[in-house]
């Protein structure tokens, strides 16, 4: 199967998520600020339920000046989901662990057609 219906767009409002199976993989599909994301739903660390994790803007920081506090801020464009078991945090767009890009979950293409949301290869 090259695609699967997730749900209608009205059934996935801003701030909601839904888990579907796609290519024998549980995938969590999320609506964050009216943008859709789809990422593997199981944490690679100890197989925790990533789909149940907190979704937050990515915390970023800049070194401004010697001796001063870092400038820490939330990204306006990148969002993350954290596994509720141990806090492993993944970028929803890339699937990379936020601290180690060598650890990565698969992310999926999302297509909307006729008011419905689909995952496609």
């Amino acid at each position, binding site marked *: 199967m090259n695609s699967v219906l997730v749900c209608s767009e009205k059934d996935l409002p801003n701030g909601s998520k839904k888990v579907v199976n796609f290519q024998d993989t549980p995938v969590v599909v999320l609506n964050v600020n009216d943008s859709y994301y789809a990422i593997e739903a199981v944490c690679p*660390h100890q197989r925790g339920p990533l789909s149940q994790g907190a979704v937050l803007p990515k*915390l*970023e*920081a800049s*070194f401004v000046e*010697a*001796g*001063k*506090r*870092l400038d*820490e801020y939330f990204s306006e464009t990148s969002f993350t989901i954290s596994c509720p078991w*141990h*806090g*492993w*945090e993944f970028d929803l767009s890339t699937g990379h*662990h*936020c*601290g*180690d*890009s060598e*650890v990565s979950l698969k992310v999926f293409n999302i297509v909307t057609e006729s008011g419905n949301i689909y995952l496609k290869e």
Partner: protein
Amino acid sequence: MGNRNYSVVDVDAHFFEPLHDFAHYLDEPWKSRFSGATRGRFIPGSTGDRWVGGRIMRNVTSYPQNDMAPEEIPAVMKHVGLDKIILLPNKMLSFGKLSSDEIAVPLANGYVDYMLDKVVNPSEGIYTYVVAPFQDTEESVALIDRVADEKGIVGLCLVTAGPEPPLGDRRYDLIYEACQDRKLPVVFHAGGSSVDNFFIRGYRKFLETHTLGFLWNNMAQIVSLVVQGVPEKYPGIDIIFQESGIFWVPLMMHRLDAEYMKRRSEAPLLTKKPSKYMQEFYYGTQPLESPENEEHLEQIVNMIGGPEHLMYASDYPHWDYDRPSVITDLNFLTDDQKSMVLGKTAEKVFGI
């Protein structure tokens, strides 16, 4: 050559400065105070019998019965088999116990001037580190600016026993910035193994506190250094950790990685796992562990980045010093790798 087959650089040996000779290099009123002082009056000592009831002896220098004389250094180099030696004034290892910058700043300045005038001799392969009075960041920077261009100064030393807050704290940023600007490597040197003043009181033998003491201080500081992002803030600095052997490094790499993967948002400046930064550091070898199965040591060396990240260190004349044979005897290193560990890497990093 100090060794028959290799050029040997010792990145961590110690000079036991006579207190009254050194006192002349201090500004008043400290010159007068030190000139009239007895040992241990201003600089804290460390309890514990290094010499195991007379079983360990040094027969090349007047130490430990007396302080050392600069004239003894060539004999020390010949005895150990060294071509170049980087000496750290021994009393400065207690530097971290000084809470008062009123003592630390003049001491650090006086020690550098004494070492440069009486001990250091680059034409004979004798160098030193400048020890930063971390108690006062601005004065540390001033000292770096004053002496960094001296040929005999090859790096900055921060003693890992004592600094609070730990050395990754942003209050030390200006010290690292000055080192980066001056292309001065930063050496983190362990200390602190007293029986009576260990973190936990009640140990009965020096064997116990010496096993733990140096190690704990390096562990405490490397955690702070990495998590607070010093290698990201100042990527141009070569970082060297000394005097805890090397088996502790993979332990801290994996433990830090495990914490970091769960709490990345608390170290947002990092762009990779802590272990990746630690694999870019250098490590003095002494006291090098010698497991029965040498393959275990080989695995440790590979885990911390390979032999190119090791530098031979003797710690002479301390009681547990290592001779270059701890490297030349290793079966898993090639001749080229032994050459790197024994000298070439240090020559490159310290520019000597």
